[in-house]
Protein backbone atom coordinates (compact mmCIF):
# COMPACT_ATOMS: atom_id res chain seq x y z
CA UNK A 1 0.00 0.00 0.00
CA UNK A 2 2.86 2.39 0.73
CA UNK A 3 3.87 3.09 -2.91
CA UNK A 4 0.25 3.85 -3.85
CA UNK A 5 -0.11 6.33 -1.01
CA UNK A 6 3.13 8.12 -1.85
CA UNK A 7 2.15 8.25 -5.54
CA UNK A 8 -1.10 9.89 -4.50
CA UNK A 9 0.67 12.43 -2.31
CA UNK A 10 3.17 13.13 -5.06
CA UNK A 11 0.55 13.77 -7.72
CA UNK A 12 -1.57 15.73 -5.26
CA UNK A 13 1.41 17.89 -4.31
CA UNK A 14 2.31 18.44 -7.93
CA UNK A 15 -1.28 19.43 -8.68
CA UNK A 16 -1.26 22.05 -5.95
CA UNK A 17 2.12 23.42 -7.09
CA UNK A 18 0.91 23.43 -10.69
CA UNK A 19 -2.22 25.28 -9.67
CA UNK A 20 -0.30 27.96 -7.80
CA UNK A 21 1.98 28.38 -10.83
CA UNK A 22 -1.07 28.62 -13.09
CA UNK A 23 -2.57 31.25 -10.78
CA UNK A 24 0.66 33.26 -10.85
CA UNK A 25 1.00 32.80 -14.61
CA UNK A 26 -2.52 33.83 -15.51
CA UNK A 27 -2.63 36.90 -13.28
CA UNK A 28 0.81 38.42 -12.65
CA UNK A 29 2.88 37.13 -15.57
CA UNK A 30 0.53 37.35 -18.52
CA UNK A 31 -2.38 39.36 -17.18
CA UNK A 32 -4.85 37.09 -18.99
CA UNK A 33 -7.05 37.27 -15.91
CA UNK A 34 -7.28 40.90 -14.84
CA UNK A 35 -7.24 41.83 -11.18
CA UNK A 36 -10.83 43.08 -11.52
CA UNK A 37 -11.85 39.43 -11.96
CA UNK A 38 -9.52 37.47 -9.73
CA UNK A 39 -6.71 38.72 -7.49
CA UNK A 40 -3.07 37.94 -8.16
CA UNK A 41 -1.07 36.22 -5.40
CA UNK A 42 0.45 39.60 -4.47
CA UNK A 43 -2.96 41.23 -4.17
CA UNK A 44 -4.21 38.35 -2.06
CA UNK A 45 -1.23 38.82 0.25
CA UNK A 46 -1.82 42.58 0.50
CA UNK A 47 -5.50 42.04 1.33
CA UNK A 48 -4.51 39.54 3.99
CA UNK A 49 -2.03 42.01 5.45
CA UNK A 50 -4.59 44.81 5.39
CA UNK A 51 -7.30 42.88 7.23
CA UNK A 52 -4.83 41.59 9.79
CA UNK A 53 -3.28 45.01 10.36
CA UNK A 54 -5.67 47.91 9.91
CA UNK A 55 -8.67 45.63 9.69
CA UNK A 56 -11.51 45.56 7.18
CA UNK A 57 -15.28 45.85 7.57
CA UNK A 58 -14.86 47.08 11.13
CA UNK A 59 -12.29 44.71 12.62
CA UNK A 60 -9.45 42.30 12.00
CA UNK A 61 -9.76 38.90 10.35
CA UNK A 62 -9.22 37.07 13.61
CA UNK A 63 -12.09 38.80 15.37
CA UNK A 64 -14.43 38.35 12.35
CA UNK A 65 -13.53 34.66 12.22
CA UNK A 66 -13.86 34.29 15.97
CA UNK A 67 -17.30 35.88 15.93
CA UNK A 68 -18.53 33.55 13.16
CA UNK A 69 -17.05 30.54 14.90
CA UNK A 70 -18.78 31.48 18.14
CA UNK A 71 -22.18 31.78 16.44
CA UNK A 72 -21.79 28.46 14.62
CA UNK A 73 -20.79 26.66 17.80
CA UNK A 74 -23.68 28.18 19.76
CA UNK A 75 -26.30 27.43 17.08
CA UNK A 76 -24.88 23.95 16.56
CA UNK A 77 -24.90 23.24 20.30
CA UNK A 78 -28.52 24.37 20.70
CA UNK A 79 -29.58 22.27 17.69
CA UNK A 80 -27.78 19.18 18.91
CA UNK A 81 -29.01 19.51 22.48
CA UNK A 82 -32.62 19.77 21.30
CA UNK A 83 -32.48 17.63 18.15
CA UNK A 84 -30.72 14.51 19.41
CA UNK A 85 -33.02 14.01 22.44
CA UNK A 86 -36.11 14.54 20.28
CA UNK A 87 -34.80 12.07 17.71
CA UNK A 88 -34.02 9.49 20.42
CA UNK A 89 -37.44 9.96 21.95
CA UNK A 90 -39.16 9.63 18.55
CA UNK A 91 -37.14 6.51 17.89
CA UNK A 92 -38.04 5.03 21.26
CA UNK A 93 -41.75 5.76 21.29
CA UNK A 94 -44.02 5.17 18.31
CA UNK A 95 -46.54 7.49 19.94
CA UNK A 96 -44.14 10.41 19.98
CA UNK A 97 -43.17 9.64 16.39
CA UNK A 98 -46.81 9.61 15.25
CA UNK A 99 -47.43 12.91 17.09
CA UNK A 100 -44.39 14.80 15.81
CA UNK A 101 -44.01 13.36 12.32
CA UNK A 102 -46.76 15.28 10.45
CA UNK A 103 -45.52 18.64 11.77
CA UNK A 104 -42.00 17.64 10.86
CA UNK A 105 -43.09 16.67 7.35
CA UNK A 106 -44.67 20.08 6.85
CA UNK A 107 -41.72 22.11 8.08
CA UNK A 108 -38.90 20.03 6.64
CA UNK A 109 -39.28 20.88 2.93
CA UNK A 110 -38.65 24.56 3.70
CA UNK A 111 -34.90 25.05 3.14
CA UNK A 112 -33.17 26.48 6.24
CA UNK A 113 -31.97 29.48 4.23
CA UNK A 114 -35.60 30.45 3.59
CA UNK A 115 -35.94 31.19 7.32
CA UNK A 116 -33.39 33.97 7.11
CA UNK A 117 -35.79 36.81 6.18
CA UNK A 118 -38.22 35.72 8.89
CA UNK A 119 -35.44 35.49 11.47
CA UNK A 120 -34.28 39.00 10.57
CA UNK A 121 -37.86 40.30 10.90
CA UNK A 122 -38.17 38.70 14.32
CA UNK A 123 -34.77 39.33 15.81
CA UNK A 124 -32.99 41.90 13.67
CA UNK A 125 -29.46 41.79 12.29
CA UNK A 126 -27.74 40.71 15.51
CA UNK A 127 -26.47 37.39 16.80
CA UNK A 128 -29.85 36.04 17.96
CA UNK A 129 -31.25 35.86 14.42
CA UNK A 130 -28.21 33.92 13.24
CA UNK A 131 -28.39 31.44 16.09
CA UNK A 132 -32.09 30.90 15.36
CA UNK A 133 -31.44 30.16 11.68
CA UNK A 134 -28.49 27.86 12.44
CA UNK A 135 -30.69 26.06 14.93
CA UNK A 136 -33.34 25.47 12.25
CA UNK A 137 -30.83 24.16 9.74
CA UNK A 138 -28.80 21.94 12.08
CA UNK A 139 -31.83 20.61 13.97
CA UNK A 140 -33.25 18.41 11.20
CA UNK A 141 -30.17 16.21 10.50
CA UNK A 142 -29.68 15.76 14.26
CA UNK A 143 -33.26 14.55 14.75
CA UNK A 144 -33.38 12.27 11.72
CA UNK A 145 -30.11 10.50 12.41
CA UNK A 146 -30.74 10.02 16.13
CA UNK A 147 -34.15 8.60 15.21
CA UNK A 148 -32.66 6.23 12.63
CA UNK A 149 -29.96 5.27 15.12
CA UNK A 150 -32.49 4.07 17.69
CA UNK A 151 -34.61 2.26 15.11
CA UNK A 152 -31.59 0.37 13.79
CA UNK A 153 -30.49 -1.05 17.16
CA UNK A 154 -30.36 -4.83 17.10
CA UNK A 155 -33.53 -6.13 18.72
CA UNK A 156 -31.80 -8.85 20.77
CA UNK A 157 -29.76 -6.18 22.55
CA UNK A 158 -32.88 -4.35 23.67
CA UNK A 159 -34.66 -7.57 24.57
CA UNK A 160 -31.72 -8.79 26.61
CA UNK A 161 -31.50 -5.51 28.49
CA UNK A 162 -35.22 -5.49 29.12
CA UNK A 163 -35.26 -9.11 30.25
CA UNK A 164 -32.61 -8.30 32.82
CA UNK A 165 -34.98 -5.69 34.21
CA UNK A 166 -32.86 -2.68 33.29
CA UNK A 167 -34.56 0.43 34.66
CA UNK A 168 -35.65 3.09 32.17
CA UNK A 169 -32.96 5.65 32.84
CA UNK A 170 -30.13 3.12 32.64
CA UNK A 171 -31.70 1.74 29.48
CA UNK A 172 -31.44 5.15 27.83
CA UNK A 173 -28.00 5.98 29.14
CA UNK A 174 -26.29 2.63 28.81
CA UNK A 175 -28.06 0.91 25.90
CA UNK A 176 -29.92 3.27 23.57
CA UNK A 177 -27.55 6.19 23.56
CA UNK A 178 -24.32 4.22 22.98
CA UNK A 179 -25.92 1.95 20.38
CA UNK A 180 -27.19 4.84 18.30
CA UNK A 181 -24.06 6.96 18.76
CA UNK A 182 -22.49 6.15 15.36
CA UNK A 183 -25.64 7.32 13.57
CA UNK A 184 -25.88 10.35 15.84
CA UNK A 185 -22.39 11.39 14.81
CA UNK A 186 -23.29 11.04 11.13
CA UNK A 187 -26.10 13.48 11.87
CA UNK A 188 -23.76 15.83 13.72
CA UNK A 189 -21.42 16.00 10.73
CA UNK A 190 -24.31 16.99 8.46
CA UNK A 191 -25.54 19.45 11.09
CA UNK A 192 -22.15 21.11 11.30
CA UNK A 193 -21.96 21.52 7.54
CA UNK A 194 -25.48 22.96 7.46
CA UNK A 195 -24.54 25.34 10.29
CA UNK A 196 -21.67 26.87 8.30
CA UNK A 197 -23.68 27.22 5.10
CA UNK A 198 -26.51 28.89 6.95
CA UNK A 199 -24.29 31.21 8.94
CA UNK A 200 -22.42 32.42 5.85
CA UNK A 201 -25.71 32.99 4.04
CA UNK A 202 -27.23 34.81 7.02
CA UNK A 203 -24.17 37.03 7.36
CA UNK A 204 -24.24 37.79 3.64
CA UNK A 205 -27.90 38.84 3.87
CA UNK A 206 -27.39 41.10 6.85
CA UNK A 207 -24.76 41.37 9.57
CA UNK A 208 -22.44 43.86 11.23
CA UNK A 209 -19.47 41.56 11.85
CA UNK A 210 -18.32 38.10 10.78
CA UNK A 211 -16.74 36.31 7.83
CA UNK A 212 -19.90 36.55 5.73
CA UNK A 213 -19.96 40.28 6.41
CA UNK A 214 -16.37 40.57 5.15
CA UNK A 215 -17.48 38.81 1.95
CA UNK A 216 -20.47 41.12 1.67
CA UNK A 217 -18.40 44.29 2.08
CA UNK A 218 -15.72 43.03 -0.31
CA UNK A 219 -18.42 42.32 -2.88
CA UNK A 220 -19.82 45.82 -2.54
CA UNK A 221 -16.35 47.39 -2.72
CA UNK A 222 -15.53 45.16 -5.74
CA UNK A 223 -12.39 44.03 -3.95
CA UNK A 224 -11.44 40.57 -5.34
CA UNK A 225 -8.42 40.19 -3.04
CA UNK A 226 -10.58 40.51 0.05
CA UNK A 227 -13.27 38.22 -1.42
CA UNK A 228 -10.61 35.52 -1.74
CA UNK A 229 -9.43 36.14 1.82
CA UNK A 230 -13.02 35.70 3.03
CA UNK A 231 -13.53 32.49 1.06
CA UNK A 232 -10.28 30.95 2.24
CA UNK A 233 -11.25 31.80 5.81
CA UNK A 234 -14.66 30.17 5.41
CA UNK A 235 -12.96 27.05 4.02
CA UNK A 236 -10.40 26.87 6.82
CA UNK A 237 -12.99 27.36 9.55
CA UNK A 238 -15.20 24.63 8.05
CA UNK A 239 -12.22 22.31 7.75
CA UNK A 240 -10.97 22.86 11.31
CA UNK A 241 -14.38 22.37 12.91
CA UNK A 242 -14.95 19.19 10.87
CA UNK A 243 -11.57 17.85 12.03
CA UNK A 244 -12.42 18.67 15.65
CA UNK A 245 -15.75 16.86 15.38
CA UNK A 246 -14.00 13.84 13.85
CA UNK A 247 -11.64 13.75 16.84
CA UNK A 248 -14.51 13.90 19.28
CA UNK A 249 -16.17 11.11 17.34
CA UNK A 250 -13.08 8.91 17.52
CA UNK A 251 -12.91 9.49 21.26
CA UNK A 252 -16.56 8.79 21.84
CA UNK A 253 -16.62 5.71 19.64
CA UNK A 254 -13.31 4.25 20.81
CA UNK A 255 -15.17 1.17 22.05
CA UNK A 256 -16.83 0.62 18.68
CA UNK A 257 -14.99 -2.01 16.62
CA UNK A 258 -16.85 -1.19 13.40
CA UNK A 259 -15.85 2.47 13.48
CA UNK A 260 -12.20 1.80 14.32
CA UNK A 261 -10.77 1.73 10.81
Amino acid at each position, binding site marked *: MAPVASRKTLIGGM*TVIGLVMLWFGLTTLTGLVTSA*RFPSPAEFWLSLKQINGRGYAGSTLVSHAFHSLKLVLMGFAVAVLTGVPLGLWMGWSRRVEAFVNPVFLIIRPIPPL*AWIPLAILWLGLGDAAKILVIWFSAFVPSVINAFTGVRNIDKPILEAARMLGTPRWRMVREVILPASLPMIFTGLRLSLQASWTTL*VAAELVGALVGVGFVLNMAQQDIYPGM*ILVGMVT*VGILGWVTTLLLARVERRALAWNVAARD
Partner: protein
Amino acid sequence: MTSPSLGFRETMLLGLAGLASFIGLWSFLSVSGIVPAQFLPGPLDVASRFFDLLTAPFAGATLPAHLASSFQRYAYGVLLAAAIGVPLGLLMGFFRLLDDIVTPLFDGLRFIAPIAWVPFAALWFGTGIGGPIMIIFAGAFPPCLINAYRGARFVEPRLIEAARMLGTPSTRMILEVLLPAAVPSIIAGLRVSAGLGWQSLVGAELIVAAAGVGFMMVQAQGSVQTPTVMAGMIAIGLVGMLIDVLLRQGEGWLRRRRGLES
Protein backbone atom coordinates in the same frame (compact mmCIF):
# COMPACT_ATOMS: atom_id res chain seq x y z
CA MET B 1 -38.29 -3.31 19.01
CA THR B 2 -39.02 -0.15 20.77
CA SER B 3 -42.63 0.18 21.77
CA PRO B 4 -44.90 -1.99 19.59
CA SER B 5 -46.28 -0.62 16.31
CA LEU B 6 -49.42 1.46 16.52
CA GLY B 7 -52.61 0.75 14.63
CA PHE B 8 -53.62 2.96 11.71
CA ARG B 9 -56.30 4.72 13.73
CA GLU B 10 -54.03 5.60 16.60
CA THR B 11 -51.32 6.87 14.23
CA MET B 12 -53.82 9.12 12.45
CA LEU B 13 -55.28 10.42 15.69
CA LEU B 14 -51.89 11.22 17.18
CA GLY B 15 -50.76 12.83 13.92
CA LEU B 16 -53.86 15.00 13.80
CA ALA B 17 -53.35 15.92 17.46
CA GLY B 18 -49.78 16.93 16.62
CA LEU B 19 -50.87 19.08 13.70
CA ALA B 20 -53.69 20.58 15.72
CA SER B 21 -51.39 21.55 18.58
CA PHE B 22 -48.89 23.06 16.12
CA ILE B 23 -51.52 25.18 14.38
CA GLY B 24 -53.26 25.87 17.67
CA LEU B 25 -50.08 27.18 19.30
CA TRP B 26 -49.29 29.28 16.23
CA SER B 27 -52.82 30.78 16.17
CA PHE B 28 -52.81 31.33 19.91
CA LEU B 29 -49.50 33.20 19.85
CA SER B 30 -50.66 35.53 17.11
CA VAL B 31 -54.33 36.02 18.07
CA SER B 32 -53.65 36.57 21.77
CA GLY B 33 -51.13 39.25 20.85
CA ILE B 34 -48.25 37.64 22.79
CA VAL B 35 -46.35 38.02 19.54
CA PRO B 36 -47.55 41.08 17.59
CA ALA B 37 -49.59 40.03 14.52
CA GLN B 38 -47.27 42.16 12.43
CA PHE B 39 -44.46 39.72 13.13
CA LEU B 40 -46.41 36.49 13.46
CA PRO B 41 -49.59 36.52 11.37
CA GLY B 42 -51.99 33.66 12.04
CA PRO B 43 -52.22 30.62 9.74
CA LEU B 44 -55.33 31.98 8.03
CA ASP B 45 -53.69 35.33 7.26
CA VAL B 46 -50.73 33.57 5.71
CA ALA B 47 -52.96 31.27 3.67
CA SER B 48 -55.06 34.13 2.37
CA ARG B 49 -51.93 36.12 1.54
CA PHE B 50 -50.61 33.08 -0.32
CA PHE B 51 -53.74 32.93 -2.48
CA ASP B 52 -53.69 36.71 -3.01
CA LEU B 53 -50.14 36.47 -4.31
CA LEU B 54 -51.19 33.97 -6.94
CA THR B 55 -52.84 36.84 -8.80
CA ALA B 56 -51.68 40.09 -7.17
CA PRO B 57 -48.11 41.11 -8.02
CA PHE B 58 -45.55 41.86 -5.28
CA ALA B 59 -42.01 43.13 -5.97
CA GLY B 60 -42.72 43.28 -9.69
CA ALA B 61 -44.47 39.99 -10.31
CA THR B 62 -47.03 37.53 -9.03
CA LEU B 63 -45.92 34.52 -7.02
CA PRO B 64 -46.19 32.10 -9.98
CA ALA B 65 -44.10 34.49 -12.11
CA HIS B 66 -41.44 34.73 -9.36
CA LEU B 67 -41.45 30.96 -9.07
CA ALA B 68 -41.08 30.58 -12.83
CA SER B 69 -38.03 32.84 -12.92
CA SER B 70 -36.52 31.04 -9.92
CA PHE B 71 -37.16 27.71 -11.50
CA GLN B 72 -35.52 28.72 -14.76
CA ARG B 73 -32.25 29.57 -12.98
CA TYR B 74 -32.53 26.47 -10.90
CA ALA B 75 -32.97 24.22 -13.95
CA TYR B 76 -29.97 25.75 -15.72
CA GLY B 77 -27.76 25.43 -12.64
CA VAL B 78 -28.67 21.84 -11.86
CA LEU B 79 -28.44 20.74 -15.50
CA LEU B 80 -25.03 22.36 -15.81
CA ALA B 81 -23.86 20.63 -12.63
CA ALA B 82 -25.08 17.26 -13.94
CA ALA B 83 -23.62 17.85 -17.41
CA ILE B 84 -20.16 18.53 -15.98
CA GLY B 85 -20.20 16.53 -12.75
CA VAL B 86 -21.41 13.17 -14.05
CA PRO B 87 -18.95 12.81 -16.98
CA LEU B 88 -16.08 14.08 -14.86
CA GLY B 89 -16.97 11.61 -12.10
CA LEU B 90 -17.08 8.73 -14.58
CA LEU B 91 -13.72 9.71 -16.09
CA MET B 92 -12.22 9.98 -12.61
CA GLY B 93 -13.52 6.51 -11.85
CA PHE B 94 -11.78 5.17 -14.94
CA PHE B 95 -8.52 7.13 -15.23
CA ARG B 96 -6.54 6.86 -12.00
CA LEU B 97 -4.33 9.83 -12.88
CA LEU B 98 -7.31 12.17 -13.28
CA ASP B 99 -8.62 10.91 -9.95
CA ASP B 100 -5.32 11.71 -8.22
CA ILE B 101 -5.26 15.19 -9.75
CA VAL B 102 -8.86 16.23 -9.12
CA THR B 103 -9.44 14.68 -5.68
CA PRO B 104 -7.09 16.98 -3.70
CA LEU B 105 -8.54 20.07 -5.39
CA PHE B 106 -12.04 18.87 -4.74
CA ASP B 107 -11.25 18.10 -1.10
CA GLY B 108 -9.85 21.59 -0.69
CA LEU B 109 -12.92 23.28 -2.15
CA ARG B 110 -15.41 21.05 -0.36
CA PHE B 111 -15.20 22.96 2.91
CA ILE B 112 -16.18 26.25 1.34
CA ALA B 113 -19.93 26.64 1.70
CA PRO B 114 -21.51 27.04 -1.77
CA ILE B 115 -23.07 30.27 -0.66
CA ALA B 116 -19.60 31.77 -0.08
CA TRP B 117 -19.20 31.85 -3.87
CA VAL B 118 -21.79 34.65 -4.05
CA PRO B 119 -19.32 37.58 -4.29
CA PHE B 120 -17.26 36.00 -7.08
CA ALA B 121 -20.40 34.79 -8.83
CA ALA B 122 -21.74 38.34 -8.82
CA LEU B 123 -18.39 39.70 -9.99
CA TRP B 124 -17.95 37.21 -12.83
CA PHE B 125 -21.47 36.61 -14.06
CA GLY B 126 -23.52 39.53 -12.75
CA THR B 127 -26.55 39.40 -10.52
CA GLY B 128 -29.14 38.73 -13.24
CA ILE B 129 -29.15 35.10 -14.23
CA GLY B 130 -25.48 34.08 -14.47
CA GLY B 131 -24.51 34.72 -10.83
CA PRO B 132 -27.37 32.73 -9.27
CA ILE B 133 -26.78 29.90 -11.76
CA MET B 134 -23.17 29.67 -10.63
CA ILE B 135 -24.19 29.41 -6.98
CA ILE B 136 -26.77 26.72 -7.74
CA PHE B 137 -24.03 24.96 -9.68
CA ALA B 138 -21.68 25.20 -6.68
CA GLY B 139 -24.33 23.58 -4.47
CA ALA B 140 -25.43 20.87 -6.91
CA PHE B 141 -22.06 19.89 -8.38
CA PRO B 142 -20.41 17.84 -5.57
CA PRO B 143 -23.07 15.09 -5.24
CA CYS B 144 -23.17 14.67 -9.05
CA LEU B 145 -19.41 14.21 -9.16
CA ILE B 146 -19.06 12.03 -6.07
CA ASN B 147 -21.86 9.64 -6.95
CA ALA B 148 -20.82 9.17 -10.58
CA TYR B 149 -17.27 8.58 -9.33
CA ARG B 150 -18.32 6.04 -6.72
CA GLY B 151 -20.63 4.33 -9.18
CA ALA B 152 -17.84 3.94 -11.72
CA ARG B 153 -15.14 3.10 -9.19
CA PHE B 154 -17.03 0.27 -7.56
CA VAL B 155 -18.24 -1.48 -10.68
CA GLU B 156 -17.81 -5.22 -10.38
CA PRO B 157 -14.13 -5.74 -11.42
CA ARG B 158 -15.06 -8.88 -13.33
CA LEU B 159 -17.16 -6.83 -15.76
CA ILE B 160 -14.27 -4.50 -16.47
CA GLU B 161 -11.84 -7.40 -16.84
CA ALA B 162 -14.16 -9.20 -19.22
CA ALA B 163 -14.66 -6.09 -21.33
CA ARG B 164 -10.95 -5.40 -21.33
CA MET B 165 -10.14 -8.94 -22.35
CA LEU B 166 -12.42 -8.49 -25.34
CA GLY B 167 -10.31 -5.48 -26.32
CA THR B 168 -12.95 -2.79 -25.57
CA PRO B 169 -11.53 0.70 -26.24
CA SER B 170 -11.70 3.27 -23.41
CA THR B 171 -14.57 5.30 -24.86
CA ARG B 172 -16.82 2.28 -25.24
CA MET B 173 -15.69 1.03 -21.85
CA ILE B 174 -16.90 4.25 -20.21
CA LEU B 175 -20.12 4.58 -22.20
CA GLU B 176 -21.19 0.95 -22.31
CA VAL B 177 -19.79 -0.59 -19.13
CA LEU B 178 -19.17 2.06 -16.47
CA LEU B 179 -22.09 4.37 -17.27
CA PRO B 180 -24.86 1.75 -17.17
CA ALA B 181 -23.39 0.15 -14.06
CA ALA B 182 -23.19 3.52 -12.32
CA VAL B 183 -26.72 4.68 -13.19
CA PRO B 184 -28.38 3.87 -9.84
CA SER B 185 -25.67 5.72 -7.95
CA ILE B 186 -25.82 8.65 -10.39
CA ILE B 187 -29.58 8.95 -9.99
CA ALA B 188 -29.25 8.96 -6.21
CA GLY B 189 -26.65 11.71 -6.57
CA LEU B 190 -28.91 13.75 -8.82
CA ARG B 191 -31.63 13.63 -6.21
CA VAL B 192 -29.30 14.98 -3.55
CA SER B 193 -28.08 17.59 -6.04
CA ALA B 194 -31.60 18.67 -6.83
CA GLY B 195 -32.28 19.29 -3.14
CA LEU B 196 -29.02 21.14 -2.49
CA GLY B 197 -29.48 23.18 -5.68
CA TRP B 198 -32.91 24.33 -4.58
CA GLN B 199 -31.49 25.31 -1.21
CA SER B 200 -28.62 27.24 -2.85
CA LEU B 201 -31.07 28.97 -5.16
CA VAL B 202 -32.95 30.38 -2.19
CA GLY B 203 -29.70 31.63 -0.69
CA ALA B 204 -28.55 33.16 -3.96
CA GLU B 205 -31.84 34.98 -4.46
CA LEU B 206 -31.82 36.37 -0.95
CA ILE B 207 -28.47 37.99 -1.61
CA VAL B 208 -28.25 38.79 -5.32
CA ALA B 209 -31.25 38.80 -7.61
CA ALA B 210 -33.81 41.12 -9.11
CA ALA B 211 -36.58 38.57 -9.41
CA GLY B 212 -37.54 35.19 -7.98
CA VAL B 213 -39.13 33.96 -4.77
CA GLY B 214 -36.08 34.72 -2.65
CA PHE B 215 -36.02 38.28 -3.97
CA MET B 216 -39.71 38.63 -3.20
CA MET B 217 -39.09 37.50 0.38
CA VAL B 218 -36.23 39.96 0.91
CA GLN B 219 -38.40 42.79 -0.42
CA ALA B 220 -41.22 41.74 1.88
CA GLN B 221 -38.81 41.57 4.80
CA GLY B 222 -37.63 45.10 4.02
CA SER B 223 -41.17 46.44 4.23
CA VAL B 224 -42.11 44.24 7.23
CA GLN B 225 -44.75 42.25 5.36
CA THR B 226 -44.48 39.07 7.34
CA PRO B 227 -47.43 37.28 5.64
CA THR B 228 -45.69 37.67 2.28
CA VAL B 229 -42.42 36.32 3.69
CA MET B 230 -44.21 33.29 5.08
CA ALA B 231 -46.18 32.76 1.86
CA GLY B 232 -42.82 32.71 0.06
CA MET B 233 -41.52 30.07 2.49
CA ILE B 234 -44.58 27.92 1.79
CA ALA B 235 -44.13 28.28 -1.97
CA ILE B 236 -40.45 27.31 -1.70
CA GLY B 237 -41.30 24.31 0.45
CA LEU B 238 -44.04 23.15 -1.93
CA VAL B 239 -41.86 23.37 -5.03
CA GLY B 240 -38.95 21.66 -3.25
CA MET B 241 -41.27 18.85 -2.19
CA LEU B 242 -42.65 18.52 -5.70
CA ILE B 243 -39.15 18.25 -7.19
CA ASP B 244 -38.24 15.55 -4.69
CA VAL B 245 -41.44 13.57 -5.33
CA LEU B 246 -40.92 13.69 -9.10
CA LEU B 247 -37.31 12.55 -8.83
CA ARG B 248 -38.27 9.74 -6.47
CA GLN B 249 -40.87 8.58 -8.98
CA GLY B 250 -38.28 8.73 -11.75
CA GLU B 251 -35.80 6.80 -9.65
CA GLY B 252 -38.38 4.10 -8.85
CA TRP B 253 -39.38 3.85 -12.50
CA LEU B 254 -35.77 3.46 -13.56
CA ARG B 255 -35.06 0.80 -10.95
CA ARG B 256 -38.11 -1.19 -11.96
CA ARG B 257 -37.21 -0.96 -15.61
CA ARG B 258 -33.75 -2.29 -14.91
CA GLY B 259 -35.13 -5.03 -12.74
CA LEU B 260 -33.43 -3.65 -9.64
CA GLU B 261 -36.59 -3.53 -7.55
CA SER B 262 -35.45 -3.32 -3.98
